C-alpha cells in the first residue's frame, strides 16, 4: 500500500485579489440559421469568483443551459467573451476546449453514469483524468470520494442498483474526483425527491467549499435556492440579480 491520498486539494486558493473563475462579457448566442435564427443569449455579463456558489434560475427555454454549455467549453462561443480560469473561449480550438474541460466538473440532470461501470469505476473515470498518478492511487482517491459522499458501502454496485439520490451522489464524486476548479451543475435535483435533493445540494456545496471550487448551478427547484452565495435570474436571454432567500429550517 502506498501513501493514502486524501481528496483534499493540496494547493490553497490563490491569495490577494484573485482572478475571477469565470468572466462573461457581452455574450450573445443564436441557434439556427437564416429565417429560423433565434437569439437565446443577449449581451450576458457574469462574473464568478473562486469558491463562489452561484445559482442560475429562470423559466425553461430562457437560455440557462446554453450559458452553462458555453461556460463549460462544450460549445463554440459566437459573440462576446467567455474567460474561464483566465482562458478566452471565443475562438478557442476544439483541443483547447477539451483540455479546459478537464478542469471543469460537470453534474447533469440525469446522472449520466456509465451503466457498465460500478460506482467506484465511475468515479475513477474522473480521477483517471489526473496525470502522474498510479492506478492504485487513482482507485484509492475514487474510494475516498465515494466515502466522502456517504457511499463507502456501495463501491461495487452498478448504477441500476442505486437509488436516484445515490446515483447523483456518485456523479458528484465523479465530478470532484478530477480536482475541478469550477463545478457546473444542470438541475441536479430535478429527478430527486425533496429530502434527497436537499442532501445532494448540501453535500455539493460542502465539498465544493472544501475544495475551493466555484459552482454554477442551474435550477428550477425553489427548495434549494438558499445554498447560493449569489442568485442570478435569467429571462429571455438576459441576466438580472435576485435576492438570496433565507435558509429554511
Amino acid at each position: 500500500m502506498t501513501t493514502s491520498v486524501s481528496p483534499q486539494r493540496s494547493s490553497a486558493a490563490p491569495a490577494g485579489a484573485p482572478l475571477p473563475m469565470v468572466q462573461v462579457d457581452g455574450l450573445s448566442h443564436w441557434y439556427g440559421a437564416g429565417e429560423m435564427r433565434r437569439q437565446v443569449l443577449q449581451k450576458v455579463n457574469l462574473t464568478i469568483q473562486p469558491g463562489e456558489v452561484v445559482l442560475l434560475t429562470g423559466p425553461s427555454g430562457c437560455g440557462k443551459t446554453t450559458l452553462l454549455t458555453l461556460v463549460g467549453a462544450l460549445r463554440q462561443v459566437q459573440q462576446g467573451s467567455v474567460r474561464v480560469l483566465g482562458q478566452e473561449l471565443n475562438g478557442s480550438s476544439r483541443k483547447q476546449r477539451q483540455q479546459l474541460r478537464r478542469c471543469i466538473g460537470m453534474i447533469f440532470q440525469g446522472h449520466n453514469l456509465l451503466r457498465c461501470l460500478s460506482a467506484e469505476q465511475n468515479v475513477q473515470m474522473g480521477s483517471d483524468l489526473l496525470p502522474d498518478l498510479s492506478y492504485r492511487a487513482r482507485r484509492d482517491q475514487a474510494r475516498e470520494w465515494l466515502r466522502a459522499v456517504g457511499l463507502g458501502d456501495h463501491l461495487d454496485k452498478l448504477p441500476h442498483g442505486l437509488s436516484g439520490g445515490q446515483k447523483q451522489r456518485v456523479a458528484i464524486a465523479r465530478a470532484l474526483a478530477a480536482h475541478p476548479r469550477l463545478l457546473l451543475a444542470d438541475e441536479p435535483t430535478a429527478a430527486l425527491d425533496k429530502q434527497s435533493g436537499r442532501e445532494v445540494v448540501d453535500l455539493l456545496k460542502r465539498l465544493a467549499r472544501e475544495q475551493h471550487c466555484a459552482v454554477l448551478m442551474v435550477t428550477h427547484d425553489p427548495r434549494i435556492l438558499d445554498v447560493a452565495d449569489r442568485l442570478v435570474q435569467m429571462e429571455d436571454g438576459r441576466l438580472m440579480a435576485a435576492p438570496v432567500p433565507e435558509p429554511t429550517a
Partner: protein
Amino acid sequence: MSGLPGLREIWSWRRIPLAWLLLTRQPARLAVALAGISFAGILMFMQFGFRDGLFDASVTVHKLFDTDLVLLSPRSSSSVSMEGFPRRRLVQTLADPDVAGITPVHWNLVIWRNPEDRSTRSILALGFEPGDPLFTDPALASKAKVLNQRGRVLFDELSRPEFGPVAEWFRDGRTVESEIGGKRVRVGGLVALGVSFGADGNILTSRETYLQLLPNTPPGSIEVGLIRLRPGADPEVVIRRLKASLPKDVNVFTKQGFMDFEKDYWRSSTAIGFIFTLGAAMGFIVGCVIVYQILYSDVSDHLPEYATLMAMGYRLSTLLGVVAREGLLLALLGYLPAYAAGQGLYALVRSATRLPVSMDTPRAVTVFTLILVMCMGSAGMAMRRLADADPAEIF
C-alpha cells in the same frame, strides 16, 4: 509479486478497462457477437482448408518421387491426362555431366475391379523397373522385388475403400486377385502412398506387367522421366542445359515445378479455387455485417455516456480507442473458438475423406488476419457514429 520495474510502471498507468467492461457487462450481446465471428472464422477455416487440401491432395504421389528433375510430354496437362514421350529423351539426359541417374515411369489410369463386389473404378497405375529407385521411401526397394514376377502389383493400402478390402484380405494372408482391363493381377504387397485429387487409389507394377495391362502403349514411350542429379548440382543450371540440348517434344521441370504444374492445373482449369475462395468471402462478409451491427448498436446505445466522457475532458481519440479495443477483443475472443472448432472439423474431414487437411500456420494466420480486418474494419465504421456524440447535447 515481483516483476520488471518497467512493466510494473506501465501496469500502474493503466486506466479502467472500459472496452472490456462494455463488452462483458452485456453478456447476451457479447455471445451473439462471438457466435457470429466464430461462425465466420469456422466457415473461412473450412473453405480454405478444403481448397488447400484439394490442391495439396493433387500432388500426394508427386511428393513421393525420388527425383530432382522431371521430364514430361508437353501434351501432358495433369496427372489425369498424361501423354507419352520417347524414352530416348530421358536416356539422352545421361549425357549431361550432372545427371547421376534416371528412372523411366509409366503413368496412367486403369480400371480396377473390386475383388469383393466386382464393381469397377479407375485407379492410378505406375509402371517402373523394379530395380530402379522410384520413391524416396527406402522400404519400396525390397517390396518391389515381388514385381519381378509377372502380373503382380503393389496395392496402395490408403486407397479409398471402394476398391475393395484388399489391404485387409492381404494382411489376413489371403491371396488377393483382381482384374485390370480384363487381365488378371495378383496383389504382391502393400504400400502406403495416399489418395490424390485425380486418383482415388494407386497401384505399382513392373514395366513388363504395365505393358501387358495397357497393350496399346506405343513402344519406347513413357509418361514421366525421373532424373537424379549429382550432389551439389544446381537444378536450374541443368534444366537450362537440358532444354538447350533436348528437342522440343519434352518439358523439363524441377520436382517442385512438377508439383506446381499439377496444382496449377486444378487451380486454373477448374472452378475449385474460385468456389472455395467465394465460400470464404461469404463467411468474411457475414462476419463483417454481424460485428458491424453489434458495434454500431453498442456505440449508439452508449452515445450519451460517450458524450459525458467528452464533457469530462476525455479526448475523442481516447473514445475511438475504446471502440477499437472492443473490435480487437472481439477478434481475439471470436478467433479462439473458431480455431478450436477448425481443428476438430479438420480431423473429421481427414477421417471421412482422407484429404490431407490440417491446421497449418499460414492458414491459421490468414484466418486470424481476416477476422482482425473484419473486426477492426467494423469498429472503424462504427466509430463514425461517435462523431454524433455532442457533449453540448447532454445537458
